[in-house]
């Protein structure tokens, strides 16, 4: 009996120790997650704090008198006249009229408040509506970037305000009266890059990314899955397939810039493909994504229970039928998850694309696979390196757009895995 009691005592003591250990272990886990969440939160606060102003634009709304005499224009349908006509003057005059106390002598200072591209916009509007000539129209134009920066960051020392005191007073006054106003930055989502931050957008980069991703997907998914199926189901187990396997695993660890160099040497120099185009970008990213897809697809195929294979073989299904009817449907969720994660990686990739020239300054939205383009992360890279702070907030805004794409792709991967996962 004494023996028994002491044994129970020992167990009780060790239990206490075990529970302490467990609690400690759990605490480590909680701390680790707290640190990770904290880092993530800091990152997001910083990016959103810096970048949300990138989603806003500053505009000037005023009554523009479209006087033919002032503009040296009497027929808006005449191409030659339209080219020669003065579209700056009506804007300057309209703004002078909006500012009490401003006179003809201040025209240079007033002109500096209006975006340089506003006159182009006015010309395009008049071209579309020739009947406007001789009338007065209430129109909204982008303000100058300096005004945009002043309106958004008046008290911020990090931003250098380029307006003089006179101009600042005018802007304050105009803002109070609602002539200068901020609204959602639709320009940011509807145009390509520009030298002027107010006119710079990410549509070009988004379209470039989509085109590049499309090329990557249609090449890497079928090739990756086919390679995985062959290696897993059909290839004989010998030195050669071992060698291939080792190489695939090595490729997954190769720095992405090496793939960029390879793309430059092979696709551009050897095959003579054009630079800066989505096709070459897609090819390079395909090389980079393939190992990820092959490895995850092989893991998915391996996880299909052998009993399913055996039962299909037992009925007399051929090797191909076993693979197509049973192994592939069961492995598909895993394969798709791996592919989406590989694609998300490729979407965020910058380095290899710099080497194949996708870093060029491209104004237009690309309209095909062989049209010069840039991609979202490269656009971020370009803007983040710009000395103008107005570009930095747009870089942050672009990062938010990129993160939204990445998060939705990963969410899609998780959803698909949950949805398609089958139990057996």
């Amino acid at each position, binding site marked *: 009996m004494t023996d028994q009691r002491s044994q129970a005592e020992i167990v009780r003591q060790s239990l206490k120790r075990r529970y302490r250990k467990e609690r400690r272990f759990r605490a480590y886990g909680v701390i680790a997650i707290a640190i990770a969440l904290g880092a993530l939160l800091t990152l997001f606060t910083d990016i959103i704090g810096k970048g949300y102003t990138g989603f806003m634009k500053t505009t000037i709304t005023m009554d523009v008198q479209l006087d033919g005499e002032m503009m040296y224009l009497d027929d808006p349908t005449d191409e030659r006249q339209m080219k020669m006509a003065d579209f700056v003057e009506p804007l300057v005059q309209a703004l002078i009229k909006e500012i009490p106390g401003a006179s003809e002598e201040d025209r240079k200072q007033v002109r500096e408040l209006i975006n340089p591209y506003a006159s182009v916009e006015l010309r395009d509007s008049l071209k579309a509506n020739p009947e406007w000539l001789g009338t007065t129209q209430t129109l909204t134009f982008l303000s100058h970037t300096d005004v945009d920066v002043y309106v958004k960051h008046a008290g911020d020392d990090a931003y250098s305000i380029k307006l003089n005191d006179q101009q600042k007073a005018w802007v304050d006054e105009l803002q109070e009266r609602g002539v200068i106003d901020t609204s959602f930055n639709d320009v940011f989502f509807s145009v390509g890059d520009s030298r002027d931050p107010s006119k710079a957008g990410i549509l070009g980069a988004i379209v470039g990314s989509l085109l590049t991703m499309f090329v990557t997907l249609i090449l890497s998914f079928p090739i990756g899955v086919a390679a995985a199926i062959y290696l897993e189901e059909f290839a004989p*187990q010998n030195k050669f397939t071992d060698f291939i396997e080792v190489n695939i695993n090595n490729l997954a660890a190769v720095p992405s810039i090496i793939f960029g160099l390879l793309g430059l040497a092979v696709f551009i120099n050897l095959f003579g493909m054009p630079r800066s185009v989505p096709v070459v970008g897609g090819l390079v990213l395909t090389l980079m994504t393939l190992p990820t897809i092959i490895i995850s697809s092989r893991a998915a195929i391996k996880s299909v*229970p052998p*009993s*399913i*294979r*055996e*039962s*299909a*073989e*037992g*009925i*007399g*299904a*051929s090797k191909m*039928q076993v693979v197509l*009817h*049973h192994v592939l449907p*069961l492995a598909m969720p895993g394969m798709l998850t791996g592919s989406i994660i590989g694609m998300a990686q490729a979407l965020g990739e910058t380095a290899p694309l710099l080497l194949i020239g996708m870093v060029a300054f491209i104004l237009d939205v690309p309209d095909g696979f062989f049209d010069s383009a840039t991609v979202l992360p490269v656009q971020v890279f370009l803007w983040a390196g710009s000395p103008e702070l107005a570009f930095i907030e747009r870089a942050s805004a672009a990062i938010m757009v990129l993160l939204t794409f990445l998060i939705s792709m990963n969410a899609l991967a998780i959803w698909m895995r949950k949805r398609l996962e*089958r*139990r*057996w």
Partner: protein
Amino acid sequence: MNTVNTTITSEVGQPEEAVVPISDEKPAETVIEEGKTVGKPFADDPKFKLRDVDVFYGDTRAIKKISLDIARNEVIAFIGPSGCGKSTFLRCLNRMNDSIDICRVKGSLHLDDHDIYDPKRDVVELRARVGMVFQKPNPFPKSIYDNVAYGPRIHGLANRKSDLDEIVENSLRKAGLWEEAKDRLDANATGMSGGQQQRLCIARAIAVSPEVVLMDEPCSALDPIATAKVEELIAELSESYTIVIVTHSMQQAARVSHRTAYFHLGHLVEVNETNKVFTSPEHELTESYITGRFG
């Protein structure tokens, strides 16, 4: 109190009887002569004619020179201790060992005078004639209907939907599953109970109308009620099919089979009519095994 006492005595009594003779007789030292099988291993006009079969896993010789005939429409049970090679031998009959790279089969194996291991012979055709039911119920994660219809579909046995429906119904009826499954043919097969799943696997195997059905411990994962149903089914199926069943349960072998083959360490020791094997075994190893002295 009475019941408690009885249980204790019976629990203590049985092992004593079984344990003591082992140390005296030492059956493990019995020498088995290679290729020599006592009893009646051969039959006239057999379905399977198997001569001098050797199976190697790498360098290990798992089956040692076994010769056996399996008659038409008979139920033959393979019994023996774990690792004696009965499952390996069974899997040779429809070349399921092909998928194991290191496995080699030697000897002559014929199904109705056709060489099973003829390299020119298509394994798909063989498996359509020799169906198989596995130890663990392994339905496809598809509907009940699709499970049964899969074989006929891939072999092109039914051209019209109505033909296929008929095959599915007949197979499920033969497997005694029709009444339970007819209202939920579209339900996923993995949602059925273990016993139902195993009968579904049998239905799936007989849907391609094979000549032989191989069963590898079909009841080892089932409860006694499901086991009884499967055994009943085997008895019914034996009217139209040749059935080879591997089992660890000697009662099961005694209940369902016409002949019983006893395997020991890769040798086929004894084959005879089931009642003879269990009442008057000719070989001492068989006797030791069926009386529960080892295995």
